[in-house]
């Protein structure tokens, strides 16, 4: 992975064989980015997608072991259990131009992935819901409330 800062944004390049979620998380920890969003272009040699079933409260998953071109990959960044976490959804196309869409679980880059990250100032948190098992985004919750309910906060530089 290689990256640089351009104004308020970061431009990253991930290379062949890198796992996207893990690499991005490492970058966010390195740069202390705890809130923001990103857009990406590139391709995967292997991709695991998930589809949330609200009535069951569970994700269903599928792994694609084939070369897929990213048509759209959008993600956001918030703090979960004291560490930055990404939430990304994507559409990818196969060699017959069919598309598959869902929640990004894992993706192995081939040959490259270009990512533009926009960090946001301040804190953004997720709290795991016991009922739905989802890590629910909680914008606008005051820091003292977070402490009262025992939420581990990300350290802001």
């Amino acid at each position, binding site marked *: 992975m290689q990256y640089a800062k351009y104004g308020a944004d970061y431009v990253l390049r991930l290379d062949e064989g890198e796992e996207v979620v893990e690499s991005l998380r490492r970058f966010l920890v390195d740069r202390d980015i705890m809130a923001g969003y990103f857009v990406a272009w590139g391709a995967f040699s292997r991709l695991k997608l998930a589809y949330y079933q609200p009535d069951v409260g569970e994700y269903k998953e599928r792994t694609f072991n084939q070369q897929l071109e990213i048509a759209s990959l959008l993600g956001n960044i918030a703090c979960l259990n004291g560490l930055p976490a990404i939430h990304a959804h994507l559409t990818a196309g196969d060699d017959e131009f069919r598309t598959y869409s869902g929640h990004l679980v894992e993706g192995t880059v081939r040959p490259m992935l270009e990512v533009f990250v926009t960090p*946001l100032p301040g804190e953004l948190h997720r709290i795991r819901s016991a009922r739905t098992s989802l890590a629910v985004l909680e914008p606008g919750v005051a820091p003292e409330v977070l402490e009262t309910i025992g939420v581990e906060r990300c350290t802001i530089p």
Partner: protein
Amino acid sequence: MQYEQLGDHYVVRLDEGEEVLWTLRRFLVEHDILAGRFMAWGTFRGLRLQHNRPVAGRYEPRVVDLEGPLEVASLLGNISTLDDEPVLHAHVTVGDAAWRTYSGHLASGTVGPTLEVVVKVLPRALHRFWNDRLHVAVLDPEEAPEEAERLEAWP
């Protein structure tokens, strides 16, 4: 709905049963947001997509109602004003349980369980004007008065 302002962005969470365009529009009115762009992540219980068909030089909307749950693969929108009221223009791709995708102009959508929206606010109003011939509200970006003057003075 729950939100937080982070610099020139707002992060908004919509909840079960909320209609996305109505709820966001109310939010924009309350915060006096007249220009911007947004992207969103989440799930819809139900979704109405629109496809505009060119018929004799104008555009006729055709809608389709999809039953969820549908995972939002991409939801990108812009914010402008029409007759001084904020309006949203959003296009969406969703995926179903069989990983099939559907795409189009977002006509309406019922959230379930959540939709996370990141709104970037632009610093001054952006207008649309209704074009009767095309049957479309046309975006009309204009330079700020001081910028227009500067460009005018350009040799």
